[in-house]
């Protein structure tokens, strides 16, 4: 106990000295804020964003439970709790958003060699290298295992040719973790490998994708005779599918939590106040009874889903097939929420551009359209239902 109390004091004074003023409660609102993803191409509107990232990265506190030898914080669960509490107390911003942290690092820790961990983990943790994910292909969406991007053995290297799609932020990323076909003659699940590729290698190129909601972080990524050293193969040759599935569970868990966090009101107005604004209020109640009951039903489900996420945490759950449930429910719920908000806002809920509508309204239209992708990316809702029926409920194939 005393040790933990000492640790709390250390954290307090370290944060006091090292967390820049604009990265915590009471920040000057005129200072621009950055969405910090790190990497070689990163640009900062506020130099303190970079200072905060560097300091937290140096401590390893962007991945506090990872061992120090890999650049992590080497903290126990109890210590991480204290760190989070103390950061919360001063309203400290998270220093780094990172696919490396959310998706690749857990896989490296489980499947990487000692050299690979020492090479890649510290750079992920310090935010020096920004990663993107190369999974889907034009011909391989839900049937991911049919992927065709091939990696031929040419001695010391693989020669990679093919195309990936839906690679988020590929145009801003430094490296990509990709699924490639190394065993063209094997059954489709048994011929896939998990490969790390530097985006600066000759033959890699990217092209952004415009969505129905407008601009998007998604890209197409092309590989044209790209030479990749065999040292970048994670796990055994042709054993990439297992790794891919583990990573997908981490991704699904992340997407569902993200969906809920946004449902809890980070984006724009709460649906109840939106309804009262557009439909009117009588004795503190939403005037329109049809909307009121629909919104109530939705909010009740949201409450129960929030409790279910909390229960999963209390049960100490790791990524598991039930991550599919969270992904499914979180994204479907988020879509319904946006449909309801658009409907409640009426004409203003389908505004696109111009000065007759305010930014919140125009953003609502775009985010509503964007949610249509939530139940597609990271495995469609139908794929999640398949995973639940087979792997959770044990229904026959």
């Amino acid at each position, binding site marked *: 106990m005393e040790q933990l109390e000492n640790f709390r004091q250390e954290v307090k004074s370290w944060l006091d000295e090292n967390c820049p003023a604009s990265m915590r409660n009471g920040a000057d609102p005129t200072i621009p804020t950055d969405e910090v993803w790190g990497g070689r191409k990163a640009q900062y509107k506020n130099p303190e964003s970079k200072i905060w990232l560097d300091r937290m990265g140096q401590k390893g506190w962007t991945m506090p439970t990872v061992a120090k030898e890999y650049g992590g914080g080497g903290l126990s669960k109890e210590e991480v709790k204290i760190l989070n509490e103390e950061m919360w107390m001063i309203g400290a911003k998270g220093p780094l958003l990172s696919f490396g942290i959310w998706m690749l690092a857990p896989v490296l820790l489980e499947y990487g060699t000692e050299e690979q961990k020492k090479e890649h983990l510290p750079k992920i943790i310090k935010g020096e290298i920004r990663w993107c994910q190369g999974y889907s292909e034009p011909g391989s969406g839900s049937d991911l295992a049919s992927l065709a991007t091939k990696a031929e053995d040419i001695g010391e290297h693989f020669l990679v040719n093919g195309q990936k799609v839906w690679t988020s932020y590929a145009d801003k990323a430094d490296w990509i973790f990709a699924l490639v076909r190394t065993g063209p003659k094997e059954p489709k699940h048994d011929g896939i490998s998990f490969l790390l590729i530097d985006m600066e290698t000759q033959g890699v190129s990217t092209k952004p994708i415009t969505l129905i909601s407008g601009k998007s972080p998604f890209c197409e990524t092309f590989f044209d005779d790209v030479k990749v050293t065999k040292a970048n193969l994670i796990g055994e040759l042709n054993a990439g599918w297992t790794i891919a599935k583990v990573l997908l569970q981490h991704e699904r868990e992340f997407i569902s939590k993200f969906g809920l966090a946004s449902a809890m009101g980070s984006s724009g107005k709460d649906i109840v106040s939106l309804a009262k604004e557009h439909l009117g209020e009588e004795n503190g109640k939403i005037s329109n009874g049809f909307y009121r009951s629909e*919104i109530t039903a939705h*909010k009740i*489900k949201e409450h129960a889903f929030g*409790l279910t996420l*909390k229960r999963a945490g209390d049960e100490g759950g790791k990524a598991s097939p039930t991550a599919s449930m969270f992904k499914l429910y979180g994204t479907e719920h988020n879509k319904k929420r946006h449909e309801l908000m658009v409907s409640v806002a009426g004409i203003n809920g389908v505004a696109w551009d111009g000065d007759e509508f305010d930014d919140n309204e125009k953003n609502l239209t775009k985010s509503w359209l964007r949610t249509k992708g939530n139940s597609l990316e990271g495995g469609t809702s139908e794929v999640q239902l398949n995973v639940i029926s087979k792997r959770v409920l*044990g229904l026959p194939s």
Partner: protein
Amino acid sequence: MKLILNEEQQFLKDTAKSFTTEKTPVNHFRSLRDSDDHLLWDKEIWQEMVNLGWSGILIPEEFGGSNFGVAGISTIMQECGKTLTPSPLFATAVLGAFAITHFGSQAQKEEFLPKIVSGEITTALAIDESSHHNPAKTAFSAIIKDNEYVLNGKKIFVVDGSSADILIVLARTSGNSGEETGLTLFIVESEADGIEKIKLSMADSRNYANIIFNDVRVSSERILGSPESGGETVESILDIGRIAMSAEMLGNAEAAFELTLDYLKQRKQFGVLIGTFQALQHRAAEMFCELELTKSSVLAAMHGADENSNELQRLASLAKTISGETLHLVSNEAIQMHGGIGVTDEYDVGFYLKRARVAEQIFGSSKFHSERYANLTGF
């Protein structure tokens, strides 16, 4: 609040699970239904439950109980729900025990609690007067006369009403039907002069009665809680009842779902197991998600009750809404996925449907509780 069971609660759950699997599988209910027994629960089984200490779970140790709390009794209710086990557990060990423990005078506690613990008496809570649960609409009157109250009116759909020894009755001592004030709770012996019990036959074949009070005289000593504040008192008793009933309904839904999954893994049509059909798989997976949400809501509500959460009313309404909706869905899908055999009396799955629809009505339907949740949250 951690949404898991502690060791004590897990132990109660395990005990209840082995008890209900061994002593009261669904056939136990079937034989009661088919018998001429008006009680519709089994006295010996109830005595065994009493011996396990279940009647005293909400009762403090000084009166012979174990004080294991709402979470304790709810986990037992959940297990009983799985095998459709009928017993006075709900009306006596949940409603009567909680009401008298929390609102009874010292004399009332000393008189009744030890007898509840020992199984000597059973109780019932008489609230409703029309086809929809609505305590504020109480018209049943209690008029003071010579330091006694005279009770007149009709209570309907009283759980265990045809057999309970002690009735806890919500009456209007002032004001008009529809007002939440002016209500008082009374403890009345069911054999008192002027009481007429009419046994009900409901779809779920459980023990219910309508009870007519005709100039029933009750001493003011028998007021439960303070006079005129029965509206608030009864809400807090009802909330505990709603949470325990939600736990039972969760148990119903879990068992109906298990039964259905087993069937999907056994039944063959077109030369294959019907569980291979995606049309059924996806519906099963959706039910799984709803069941998970229901588990979390019931856990939050029962722990909320034990921790005196200031969210208790919302949590109770959340639990009753979600468990009602989930059980509704699962009981319907269970029948449909079973096909023809699902609508035969010979097969058990129909029992779950019938129990579901009655339980959904007890102390407020999902619609009632959605409205209450909305009002409490300011929607």
